[in-house]
């Protein structure tokens, strides 16, 4: 529990905050998109480490509610792919869809969408990490 509450949980919050900030910066200045991609990778990694730690804690006898904890953990993982939602508007991806209403994005628009999605997902990831920590008794 010590490693989780003192290291992993704060790290997830820090990386989430970084993603939120870089997402906002990218929306205003698209050249930050490359840095945002690094932060997104870091959030994926931090979430993976968090998932492993939570499962280990649950298996080691933590009396947290199993359904809620696993539910929040799955939600944390499920929202991460939204950070790449801009790719769905790339011309080649849109061309493969017969839907005439599918948006087609230019590279700068993809960067801005990724930035906005990063803000949304970063906030959600931090809230979910906080909820998991509360359930586990680490926050």
């Amino acid at each position, binding site marked *: 529990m010590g490693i989780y509450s003192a290291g992993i949980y704060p790290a997830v919050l820090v990386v989430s905050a970084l993603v939120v900030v870089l997402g906002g910066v990218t929306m205003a200045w698209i050249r930050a998109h490359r840095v945002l991609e690094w932060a997104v990778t870091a959030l994926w990694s931090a979430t993976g480490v968090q998932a492993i730690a939570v499962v280990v804690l649950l298996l080691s006898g933590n009396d947290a509610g199993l359904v809620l904890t696993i539910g929040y953990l799955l939600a944390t993982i499920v*929202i991460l792919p939204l950070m790449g939602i801009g790719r769905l508007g790339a011309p080649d991806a849109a061309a493969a869809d017969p839907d005439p209403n599918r948006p087609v994005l230019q590279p700068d628009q993809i960067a801005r969408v990724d930035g906005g999605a990063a803000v949304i997902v970063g906030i959600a990831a931090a809230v979910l990490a906080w909820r998991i920590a509360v359930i586990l008794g680490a926050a």
Partner: protein
Amino acid sequence: MNAIGRILLIAAYAVLGLAATGRSVVQITTKLADAPLPYLVSGASALLYVLIAVALWRGWRRVAIVGTAVELVGVLVVGTLGYAAPELWPDETVWTGYGSAYGWVPLALPVIALVVLLRGGRRAPDDAVSAPTA
């Protein structure tokens, strides 16, 4: 409606739909008898969020407008009833306190979505939310 706004609204509704769905599934499957009205309202809100996300993605503009309008009315009615008739609400819903447990996003999001959808409708009076830009 510009493509960036549309996709970000889809992402926001997807996240909110996931949160509301998870919460309501747990509430309805484990303790529905304790507070049927709040938990069914949570379930309805979850379905609405998913429907709006799908409508935005598929370009169903009228569905998206009606859905967000219903959502806004729901947040206002449930939020007000939470203060005016607290005995009806033994537990919280997604819309309790005008969505305060979710950072008031349930109140702000339909307002933003309606503004974007209606402005987009005036610019492009076809039925689609947005036409391809390339």
